[in-house]
């Protein structure tokens, strides 16, 4: 499979924060979810890919082209939704259509209007008057109407109610019906990603902690629930990390099936991305 995006040895240093070194790929035709705490470096990574911040090291290829050298060509094929960054909000929705016509070669007014209709957005409305959900839908409609091949979305579902969220996920699934299309989205609402993401990249404190396919992650990891005394008996090499609570103890294990045979007198649950995130960030190691 070809890659839409390849990030190699990326480093970005700030005074108090360092991102990197980061290496990963986005295969064409896939949805890649970027998860991590606020401040873990998700937005910095996205901004580096978009070349709107200056990186200290590394290279980023988008559609096999360097993202700096071929910035203009590459950006014609990218649709972007950034958190809290958009058009001046005293503009009308229909203004976006006429502005974007003068920005993207491939801007398609019909597509845009089709999405407005689908999202029940009245083109005469002023952006300022939109609710958060409507605004997000407008941002997505804007990002997708120049027929991009890659969507880069920073927190596209945060602050949305479940109904709108599922509508938004529908659009994403629709978008990747084309095998050349791919999506990179960052989020801290991990449940959105649990089913639709093909690959999950977990970033913590500026580094990639996990980069695995959804299946590998959710079918492989498990959480063993036991008490303190049992924890002492568990083989050290089976423990990825653990967290002691007041009444129980949770141990993150790999190879769930094998482990539930080995420790057949306790519960080993399937793990959600959210719990996995918590156990890796907050859990202790042995």
């Amino acid at each position, binding site marked *: 499979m070809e890659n839409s995006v390849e990030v190699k040895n990326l480093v970005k240093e700030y005074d108090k924060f360092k991102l990197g070194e980061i290496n990963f790929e986005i295969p064409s035709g896939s949805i890649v979810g970027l998860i991590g705490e606020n401040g873990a470096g998700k937005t910095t990574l996205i901004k580096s890919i978009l070349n709107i911040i200056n990186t200290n090291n590394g290279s980023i290829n988008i559609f096999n082209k360097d993202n700096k050298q071929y910035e203009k060509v590459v950006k014609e094929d990218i649709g972007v939704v950034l958190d809290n960054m958009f058009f001046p909000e005293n503009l009308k929705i229909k203004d976006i259509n006429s502005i974007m016509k003068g920005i993207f070669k491939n801007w398609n007014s019909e597509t845009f209007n089709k999405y407005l209709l689908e999202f029940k957005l009245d083109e005469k409305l002023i952006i300022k008057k939109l609710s958060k959900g409507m605004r997000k839908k407008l941002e997505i409609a804007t990002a997708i109407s120049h027929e991009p091949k890659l969507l880069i979305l920073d927190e596209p579902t945060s602050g949305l109610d479940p109904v709108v969220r599922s509508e938004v996920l529908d659009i994403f699934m629709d978008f*990747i019906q084309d095998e050349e299309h791919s999506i990179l989205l960052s989020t801290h609402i991990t449940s959105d990603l649990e089913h*639709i993401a*093909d690959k999950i990249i977990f970033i913590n404190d500026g580094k990639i902690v996990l980069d695995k396919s959804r*299946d590998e992650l959710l079918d492989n990891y498990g959480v063993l629930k036991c008490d303190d005394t049992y924890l002492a008996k568990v083989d050290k090499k089976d423990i990825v990390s653990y967290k002691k609570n007041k009444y129980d103890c949770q141990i993150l294990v790999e190879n769930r099936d094998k482990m539930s045979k080995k420790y057949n007198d306790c519960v080993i*649950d399937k793990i959600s991305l959210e719990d996995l995130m918590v156990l890796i960030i907050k859990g202790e190691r042995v």
Partner: protein
Amino acid sequence: MKIIISNSSPIPIYEQIKKAIILQIMDGELVENEALPSIRSLAQDIKISVMTIKKAYDELEEEGYIVSIHGKGTFVAPKNTALARENAQKEIEKHICEAIEIANKYEISKKDLLDLIDIFYGSDC
């Protein structure tokens, strides 16, 4: 085609999809040469990642239930009774092993186990 997925089940989602399709082939709901939805459209319809569906389809093809013809799509394979039998046997073996494990754990003899099978065979269970 029907596919019902349980999110709380410990069975991996690709396994659930596989099982659902195999069951429908066995029941005759999906007939020989019937076209299956494409990986991407199925992914869209059941809101499951493309790679998960692909894994299920790949394994189904490996096991001979479906065939994918490049550029045309994926179809239900001609019914292969020998194959179906073999798969059924594998499934039975797995359950027998489990039964034996439980028997050993509670010191139930081989004879008692066989007796149990005798009793249940033929009755509705």
